[in-house]
């Protein structure tokens, strides 16, 4: 009697894959001193999407906006063809009408109600009999029926997580938001709960947005990842595409690089923690090779190398006795003044942008055509997926 009840609504027209969550929104919080702004656009298809990012990246703010607990400043949130929020139309469904399941970080189980009463809470509109049946069904699918009469205080952490999931899912939400709900659990308990959740969603096919700041959890879930950093989505893809060390860090900073080159892994030196990468867009005849930090990328892998213009040293004689591993000869192509810095373009097989001060230019007597050597530390070479 349990299965038909929860899957009944699925057969009736709701096709898995048919109702993605589409969110495009902006939200500013705090005063100017502590200002934080969220500005994202993404689509979460039915199934798991992982929202990954460090604390303070805006993950919970994003979930609160989707659930309607915070009102975005602009743009829209749509599930399937149902508009939940549209700033332009002045449309803003209250949280109680959005039909979005939200499992909070601290679960927010009602302490004065039993497990059963917690689970039935969202079914108040149904007749008592149906309410009990649906609650019983979902308690069964999350294996917590035996706890029905206990209060949240009297059960274990893992059991509480199950109750919170059951409470959110029994209402047949069109989206499920999970805010680090399993963070405190051991790996085994966690994976059992995730398995049950996956099994449940087999029949329902709703988008599940799973928030975490743990890399292990991202790899364990192995689903599509959205990387959120300082209120922006900076990467999207499979965990391996997005997160392999130190991808995630560099991906998040992609915008800050003046020099980004296509490169190919030539050799790996695991004993030294370095690799050699050849820049593939170097002009014919001059091969530029860089020593970079080691990442999990096979020999022959194509990737991007990003180098900040301010991280490159410039010498007018062949330098020696340096700790930096990359010394590349080249010639100044142009010098351009921008406010108080000089942006030098150096032709060295590739064109590299280097920033230096006015004083440095004058002291070195730099001018276009001058022969120079570029000095780049291994760890100034940031690797990104291509």
């Amino acid at each position, binding site marked *: 009697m349990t299965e038909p009840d929860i899957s009944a609504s699925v057969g009736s027209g709701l096709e898995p894959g048919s109702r993605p969550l589409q969110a495009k929104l902006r939200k500013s919080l705090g005063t100017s001193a502590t200002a934080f702004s969220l500005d994202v656009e993404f689509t979460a298809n039915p199934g798991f999407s992982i929202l990954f990012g460090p604390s303070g990246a805006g993950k919970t703010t994003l979930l609160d906006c989707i659930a309607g*607990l915070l009102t975005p400043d602009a743009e829209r949130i749509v599930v399937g063809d149902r508009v939940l929020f549209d700033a332009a139309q002045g449309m803003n469904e209250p949280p109680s009408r959005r*039909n979005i399941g*939200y499992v909070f970080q601290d679960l*927010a*189980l*009602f*302490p*004065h109600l039993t497990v059963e009463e917690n689970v039935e809470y969202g079914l108040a509109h149904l007749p008592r009999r149906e309410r009990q049946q649906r609650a019983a069904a979902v308690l069964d699918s999350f294996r917590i029926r035996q706890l029905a009469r206990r209060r949240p205080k009297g059960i274990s952490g893992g059991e509480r997580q199950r109750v919170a999931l059951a409470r959110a899912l029994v209402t047949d939400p069109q989206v499920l938001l999970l805010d680090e709900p399993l963070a405190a659990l051991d790996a085994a308990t966690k994976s059992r709960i995730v398995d049950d959740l996956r099994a449940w969603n087999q029949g329902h096919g709703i988008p599940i947005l799973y928030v975490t700041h743990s890399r292990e959890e991202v790899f364990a879930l192995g689903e599509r990842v959205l990387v959120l950093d300082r209120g922006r989505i900076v990467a999207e893809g499979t965990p391996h595409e997005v997160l392999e060390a130190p991808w995630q860090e560099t991906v998040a900073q992609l915008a800050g690089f003046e020099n980004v080159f296509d490169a190919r892994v030539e050799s790996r030196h695991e004993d030294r923690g370095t690799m050699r990468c050849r820049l593939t867009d170097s002009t014919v005849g001059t091969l530029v090779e860089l020593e970079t930090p080691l990442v999990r990328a096979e020999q022959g892998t194509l990737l991007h190398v990003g180098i900040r213009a301010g991280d490159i040293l410039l010498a007018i004689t062949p330098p020696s006795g340096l700790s930096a591993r990359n010394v590349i000869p080249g010639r100044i192509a142009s010098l351009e003044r921008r406010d108080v810095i000089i942006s030098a373009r150096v032709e060295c097989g590739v064109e590299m942008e280097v920033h230096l001060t006015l004083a440095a230019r004058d002291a070195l007597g730099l001018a276009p055509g001058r022969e120079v050597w570029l000095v780049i530390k291994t760890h100034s070479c940031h690797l990104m997926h291509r």
Partner: protein
Amino acid sequence: MAIDWQAFWLTLQLAVIVSAILFVIGLPVAYWIAFSRARWKFLVEAVVALPIVLPPTVLGFYVLVALGPRSPLGRWWLTLTGHTLAFTFSGLVIGSILYSLPFAVQPFVASFSGVDRKLIAASATLGASHLRTFLRVILPLSMPGLITGGALSFAHTMGEFGVVLMVGGNIPGVTRTVSIDIFDQVQASNYAAANQTAVLLLVVCFGLLSLVYGLNRKAWLFGPGR
């Protein structure tokens, strides 16, 4: 005559009626204070708290004027019922409600504000209206504050003197409460009778408060604090 039982029952009646009405008025007022984001909320809070610091005679004086035949309220009541509110039991109820308002509202506000906001948010995401959230989540988790507010307004009304004297005077069976009675006995140098009545009031109030604090210990088992 040792204890003026008529005055005692009248006082009891007054306290029951006043605290019941304060529940009805106080819950929405406290809800608004606890959850409103209005900029002028502090003004309402100040007005509600005013009776705590205002001398009862000042409050009683204004209530008396407001209930009298020269105020709009008093005139309205006069045309409606044929007599003024001043020096009646109803007038006493109105004065007492104002006087005891903070003793009900402040504990309510404190307990509403103590309810975990996440629980309120969770209730909303589960489809509950504001009213349902209030009845099913906020009120049950505010039991200690409700009990405290109810008991304090009851006990406070039992023992009030200044407002009663100003608004109600001293009419046996109508506005003569226990505290007025004690004052009368002392004026008449009838210390023994005053003592008996005073002891009765003391015992009742002490008993009530012990009951409240005893109950609250239990109520807290389900409260947000544990």
